[in-house]
């Protein structure tokens, strides 16, 4: 075991993993985090805590992660390269681990131009690839990036993101390979809607032997409405939403669109369970945490394994 985190145990034991996501509040209300956490408790193996997602200031990811631990859930501490330099990143990793955080997801981060402080300095001292490698060196070699020894190194299960859909599409599997070589233990993909493209991506990953070195969790976000689908298709960079899905949602008719979105997600999950190389699903039910128990139940992923 690299970290002994619950997520690592689930994957190591060969179970089909099921992870969730929680966005911290734009304020200090810990109760809000606890309330969202209750919908996820017992239904997922680990919960991603986003780090100022879409470059909007929120309660810090490690702080919300600690609230989650106190509620008996396992966080997956997200860290982006936009807001901290290598000193701050490493000290946060030490502190997070000292408080019991065992999973991390290493990301570049959305550009600050999108957020609520577009005039801010984007740090990007290191990039997500270098962050993955830094955490690996901290864990396995007990070394800081600067080369000094770490007393009691942090044993982190290292996660990274992968987008199989963004251009240049042909390069995406190679970038995945690079992240694995840099030290990623598990991958959570971008929300998948184009199943054809994802099947090709997974086949490439399997053929390159990548799925033997790393666990790949397929990203699922149920569509709540036609508006959301159109927004994802047109306004979220790197997102691939086929017209056929938008049509399917539209055809479901008024009052039935959200249910159709969940149905599509459930069909995806069924396919992922059988798809070679897919080790689990990462469910990003954005501001829809209360739907997670129902989705988990209907997806047949309950009860979650315990150790």
């Amino acid at each position, binding site marked *: 075991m690299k970290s002994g985190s619950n997520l690592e145990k689930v994957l190591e034991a060969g179970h089909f993993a099921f992870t969730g996501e929680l966005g911290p509040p734009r304020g200090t209300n810990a109760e809000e985090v606890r309330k969202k956490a209750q919908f996820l408790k017992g239904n997922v193996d680990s919960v991603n805590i986003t780090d100022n997602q879409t470059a909007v200031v929120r309660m810090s990811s490690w702080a919300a992660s600690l609230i989650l631990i106190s509620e008996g859930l396992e966080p997956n501490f997200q860290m982006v390269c936009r807001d901290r330099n290598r000193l701050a990143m490493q000290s946060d990793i030490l502190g997070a681990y000292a408080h019991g955080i065992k999973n991390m997801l290493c990301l570049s981060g959305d550009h600050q131009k999108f957020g609520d402080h577009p005039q801010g300095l984007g740090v990007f001292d290191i990039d997500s690839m270098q962050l993955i490698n830094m955490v690996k060196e901290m864990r396995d070699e007990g070394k800081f990036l600067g080369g000094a020894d770490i007393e009691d190194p942090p044993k982190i299960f290292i996660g990274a993101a992968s987008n199989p859909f963004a251009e240049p599409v042909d390069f995406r599997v190679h970038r995945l*390979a690079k992240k694995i070589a840099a030290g990623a233990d598990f991958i959570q993909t971008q929300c998948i809607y184009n199943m054809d493209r994802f099947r090709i991506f997974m086949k490439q990953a399997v053929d390159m032997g990548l799925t033997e070195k790393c666990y790949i969790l397929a990203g699922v976000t149920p569509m709540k409405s036609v508006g959301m689908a159109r927004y994802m298709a047109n306004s979220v960079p790197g997102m691939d939403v086929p017209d056929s899905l938008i049509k399917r949602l539209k055809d479901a008719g008024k009052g039935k669109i959200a249910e159709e979105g969940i149905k599509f997600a459930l069909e995806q999950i069924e396919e992922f369970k059988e798809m070679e190389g897919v080790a689990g699903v990462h469910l990003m039910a954005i501001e829809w945490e209360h739907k997670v128990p129902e989705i988990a139940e209907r997806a047949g992923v309950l009860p979650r394994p315990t150790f």
Partner: protein
Amino acid sequence: MIVAKRKPFEEIKEMLKGYKKVLNVGCGTCVAVCLAGGEKEVDVLNIELDMAGKLDENPIELGAMTIERQCDREYLEALDPLVDDYDAILSMACGAGIQFLAERYPHKPIFPAVDTTFIGVNQGVGWYEERCRSCGSCVLGLTGGICPVTMCAKGLYNGPCGGTNKGSCEIDKDQPCAWYLIYERLSRQGRLDNILKFSPATDWQNQIPRTLIQPGYKKSEEV
């Protein structure tokens, strides 16, 4: 070249408030080429300042002088006989030139008339684009001659990120994704191996003021 743009007129006027005699110094190199601070721009700005001063019934006596390069002592010397006649100096050079001027005349208030903007290229008349951040450790040999530090909005060394948008950057559909271009170019050259390798954390060279003495010009004990 170093590209600059003139500051808004009101800002320049505000800085000069209270000064009666101002010498406006242009620079004949980069800022002249990019049409921000050469001889012509000095004349235009002086005309504007002169008119505004008259309208405000608070006239400024303006001098004009454009030297070849404000970042070079050899040329600054030409200003020595003039400077004492003025209360303040307005410089239309880049930030380096302005500071060199201030260093030479430490008793004199010096004001910038331009904002130094970037190191860039000339795309057309009056149209410039940034190309270099002078990071001090050039990777263009690996990246097909496209700078990821400058041209990628996140300065990624191991791109492309997941935000590429059909070949554009996530920040703006009119901004090409640098890593998409790098990929395309290396692919055509059969050199994709370059970016399949992990690029480790950068040893940033631009975090302290830098000094460079070319090897051939070092004193013998330093070589």
